[in-house]
């Protein structure tokens, strides 16, 4: 199994979720994160004190998938999350050793 982690722009969540569902994914987990990268942030000014804010709001999506689905998932995310503008984000794929569904105790692919 693989665990696919994608950092995306927040307003792309619904499109990515739909693309993943279409690709046969039944579950995923989303975290609000702050990203630092090439995309430049903004400046905030409070009573004359200027702060350069370089961390931008992003969403992190984690999907555990059977290895054979990994490519499809990566492609689905890539095309759904792309705007072509800097800051679209990254996808990271790692290997996953085990998966368990807490409710039933089902294992691995059955658990996804």
């Amino acid at each position, binding site marked *: 199994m693989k665990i696919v982690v994608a950092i995306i722009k927040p307003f792309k969540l619904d499109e990515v979720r739909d693309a993943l569902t279409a690709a046969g994914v039944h579950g995923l987990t989303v975290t609000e994160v702050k990203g630092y990268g090439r995309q430049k942030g903004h400046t*905030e*000014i*409070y*009573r*004359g*004190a*200027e*702060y350069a*804010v370089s961390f931008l709001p992003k969403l992190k999506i984690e999907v555990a998938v059977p290895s054979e689905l990994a490519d499809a998932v990566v492609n689905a995310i890539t095309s759904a999350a792309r705007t072509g503008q800097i800051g679209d984000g990254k996808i990271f794929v790692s290997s996953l050793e085990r998966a368990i569904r807490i409710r039933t105790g089902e294992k691995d692919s059955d658990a996804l």
Partner: protein
Amino acid sequence: MRMNNKLKRTMMGASVSLLGLAVGTGLALAQTAAPTPNKGDTAWMLMATGLVLMMSIPGLALFYGGLVRSKNMLSILAQIFMIVCLVAVLWTVYGYSLAFTSGGSLNDYVGGFSKIFLNGVNADSNAATFSNGVVIPEYIYFAFQMTFACITPALIVGAFAERTKFSAVMLFVALWVTFIYFPIAHMVWYWAGPDAIGDAAKALAAAADGAAKTAAAAKLEEIKADAGLIFRWGAIDFAGGTVVHINAGIAGLVGALIIGKRVGYPREAMMPHSLVMTMIGASLLWVGWFGFNAGSNLEANGTTALALVNTFVATAGAALAWLFVEWAAKGKPSLLGMVSGAVSGLVAVTPASGFAGPMGSLVLGLAAGVLCYFFVAVVKNKFGYDDSLDVFGIHCVGGILGALATGILVNPALGGTGILDYEAKPGSAVVAVYEFGPAIIAQAKAVLLTLVWSGVGSAIIFKIVDFTVGLRLAVDQEREGLDLADHGERAYNH
């Protein structure tokens, strides 16, 4: 302010009671009857008192609280809430007496103890206003002034927010109101009242021969001398430019310097955690300030309405001024700038509110917006002191501007009301001839004395607090936030 005690008298519907007076006793009464409160004045002062309490809690608490980091939110709210409670009790026990009774040989600087524990004050005793023959129940005068005593030290804590121990703040405030606020309120606002002066002036006019004249003149002088030092200088302060804002502003700056900078300042970003709270606070301050300024007229008439109009217009002007200056200087107009501008206008118009005309107040507001912006956004950064919430830059600077401008804008030629003279036509107030020199000098002296008294006095008190309970928490605790360290709570558990 001298109070008139009248016999217990059941208030009756005006038509009936007045009729009885008119028919039963004739003209003679007009000379001797002690004035009774007009219920319209009482109604307004009840409300004004509520409005000024609302300025402190939740107004000021939110205005300040929104500007700190969320880990220090409760510490701001707790400090302001308990300052109100603590000072209310001290004011009741001895503060009112120290501010608003005669202080004997110390009368220049402070009152005496004749009204401690509200001795002699009851539901039938009255307090003078600024009009001859107009009084209000002393209890409402007491309560209205109490709200001023409560909010002034609460203003100070913004200057050293996010780093000062709760216990230190409480001890500081107890000492500060006793040695700084009560005396300065006495110096600026204590006087014998219009009727005392009017009666003495009438007696002088009626005095038959030389000896009687001399005695009556001496009596009049004595009554006029029964006033605080700054009042006798002829300085005017309608609603507390010196007593409240300069006083609190300089104490704040001194505190910020003695207590030192926040851990991480100015390297770490210390952004306001909720400008929403700050905006709510600023709005409630504005609404409440109608009670503060227009309530300071102590009655409900055209001058009260003027004070409200001035408060409205100066504030709007100052917000616009700050907005445009910031827009020009930084490229964007911020909400924090707008509300800061509004507060600077409120501060500046405070001493002028019942003296200036609306156009004068508009100009004053515009000037306040620009000047306070300059102090907050330029001067503070230049000098590097950590006045966390700009108590000096807004309250002290705005207060000084307002105090001086009041001496100018009171001029009837500029649309001002002029300064009242209670002797020229005893029994009523007439507008005195305006003279620029004496007016501005009196104002400047008032400003200076306040700066020195409060600046030096506050420094001493901060040192005392430091040597006793200590001013600051450990660095780790400050990092974790004062809410947990001082109060064992967190503001938000979402």
